[in-house]
């Protein structure tokens, strides 16, 4: 120790032990930072650059066009449709996922027998490959062969078009996504519920609180950090929906009649199928701004500290 403190002034004359430790930490952090800059920030910056230029993906020239790509987007009904659809996925999917997730998590906490099995069962969809699951769901929704319609037929009810109907397709796909993320949501809630100290419940029960009151005034406020995390995290996922939609509407991607089209699928089609990279990058920039705004807003509104 003595030799080190003596040696230090010769190399870093003004740095104390703490500062040198921090320097080491930064040195190690430099590696992931470099990675982050090269893999994340640089492409994002180049995407912003492209959004102000016209580029057909192969042309060596990228003439500057100012905000014209954004104007083109605003004039494209498919963009408006994709934006509206994306909002619908968020508005329907997230509440469903949160409510179902919380209900099931609370139910699972009460299960004492075969606890591990139940938890594994609910978690399974989350670890199932998305593409395979999407194709199986597509068959389940089939008007001709699907088991869902077979049930309706057996009950003497008319069949439903599901993915073939512009009115139902989006909700049919949302159901699959909720099913897929539910297991993950449950695990998050289980952890959150475990973290609530039992003393609060006991104290409230002594004061004569009913089950609903316990839930409303103890569970919900103390679960707030978990709720905020869940909502922010799943909003980002729902705003970036792509794989499930692409695979469940493979021949008419985002169809029928653009009724399931998401922003990311729209970007993919513009950029990599129609080679309009400028407009695709512009749509990405819009999506980025929306995600950023929504995330900040949610953090602000939802993360009110709870005081007792």
């Amino acid at each position: 120790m003595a030799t080190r403190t003596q040696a230090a002034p010769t190399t870093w004359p003004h740095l104390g032990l703490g500062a040198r430790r921090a320097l080491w930490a930064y040195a190690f952090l430099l590696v992931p930072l470099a990675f982050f800059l090269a893999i994340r920030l640089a492409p994002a910056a180049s995407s912003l650059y492209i959004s102000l230029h016209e580029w057909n993906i192969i042309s060596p020239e990228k003439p500057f066009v100012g905000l014209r790509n954004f104007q083109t987007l605003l004039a494209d009904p498919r963009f408006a449709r994709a934006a509206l659809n994306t909002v619908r996925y968020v508005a329907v999917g997230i509440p469903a996922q949160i409510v179902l997730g919380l209900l099931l998590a609370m139910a699972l906490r009460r299960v004492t027998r075969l606890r591990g099995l139940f938890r594994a069962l609910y978690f399974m969809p989350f670890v199932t490959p998305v593409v395979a699951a999407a194709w199986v769901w597509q068959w389940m929704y089939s008007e001709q062969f699907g088991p869902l319609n077979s049930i309706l037929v057996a009950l003497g009810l008319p069949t439903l078009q599901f993915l073939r109907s512009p009115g139902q397709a989006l909700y049919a796909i949302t159901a699959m996504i909720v099913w897929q993320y539910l297991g993950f949501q449950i695990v998050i809630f289980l952890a959150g519920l475990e973290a609530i100290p039992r003393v609060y419940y006991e104290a409230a029960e002594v004061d004569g609180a009913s089950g609903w009151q316990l839930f409303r005034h103890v569970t919900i406020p103390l679960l707030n950090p978990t709720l905020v995390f869940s909502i922010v995290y799943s909003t980002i996922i729902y705003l970036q929906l792509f794989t499930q939609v692409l695979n469940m509407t493979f021949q008419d991607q985002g169809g029928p009649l653009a009724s399931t089209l998401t922003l990311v699928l729209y970007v993919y089609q513009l950029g990599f199928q129609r080679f309009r990279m400028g407009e695709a990058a512009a749509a990405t920039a819009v999506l980025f701004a929306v995600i950023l705004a929504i995330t900040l807003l949610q953090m602000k509104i939802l993360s009110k500290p709870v005081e007792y």
Partner: protein
Amino acid sequence: MKHVLALLAAVGLLLGLASVGATQQQVTITYWQYFFESKVRLIDQLIPQFQAQNPGIRVVHENFPYDTYNQKVASAVPAGQGPDVINLFYGWVPLYVDSGYLQPLPTDAFPVQELEREFVPMLRNSRFDGKYWALPTAVRSLAMFYNDDLLARAGVARAPVTWDEFLVAAEKTTVRDAAGRIQVEGFGIAPGGQDHHLIREVLFRQWGAAPYSPDGRRVTYATPQGAEALRWYTDLITRHKVGAIDFFPGANGYRNAFMAGRAAMIFDGSFAIGAIRGGTRAKWGVAPLPRRSAGGEASNFGSYWVHGLTVRATGPKRDAAIRFLKFLVSPEVQRVWLERVGELPASRSLVSDARLANDAVFGPFIQGLAYSRATFFVDETAQRQVLMDAVNEVVVNNKSPMQALQEAAAKEQKILDDFWTKRAKKQ
């Protein structure tokens, strides 16, 4: 003895060096195509053959996955790399010309009149700016695949020749369950498969509506005849119920349904022969696309991949690239291509070969080439979407075919206008 051998070796070495000096300087050219196994293997076998015929030229063959092909070109060419001869989908030619990657085919090496005499007529549809930019080795057309067993079981004696016969056959072969759900489609309908080509280049034309103006810049199918054609097609779903969209899911759902014996008839391209041959258990056959009456107008949609010269090919490389291109589109290569890859030859002389035209499987496709048209697409993805949507507007939204078609024409016109305005600004 030792000395003699050494002397012989020395003489041989000298002669060898002299012969190298006598030939022209070695030129290396690069050829790019996307990865399709049979094509990649064939080109690998053809290159030594070409090099033997053309000493002094070395061809480097590189290939990339289809999905990243255009991106690869985009990153390589500005970096001073990339191909001298490139393989492209014909629909991408405008994009490549527009981006300044292709040079027009030199008319001294490829006289226009000769090209139009030698190649199947649909080549004309790839003229751009009044010039030819690339040539195909092989082409594809559409035909009807039918399940012989299903037709026979339904009492249909032969493959339908007219659309009326087609409808009757489709009705007879459709099987529904008690709830009216289709279990076997009479017609494996697929607007997003090959049917949008069928509607555009076959039904519209046969019903009396030219889909586009002769210069390809105006959409002209929104006429009463065009609407009748669309109505005839959508009636198959809504009124006759002989097929259902997405009956089998997936991009090739209609083909999968056919192979599984769940669709009696489908329209598909010659590129599907391999898959259908390998995957269909029932007895199947191929017939030309139906017409309105037995002697009525025949029409077909064709498409093809082309080889073009890039702007990188200059000086001696250009000469070498021209030779390689000529070799790639020669009748000899076309014949091997048909055998190994299963794609139809692009030259008229081979197409009229009686043996080929009478082939039970290739024959109907070959016949179709005489009257195939390759739509001049400027944005195939978007133009395909427009027609798929028109069908859905009628089928799911109950719009009248005329209204659906008018909306489609307006949307497609905008796509064309957009392309041509940008093009005009660049020139």
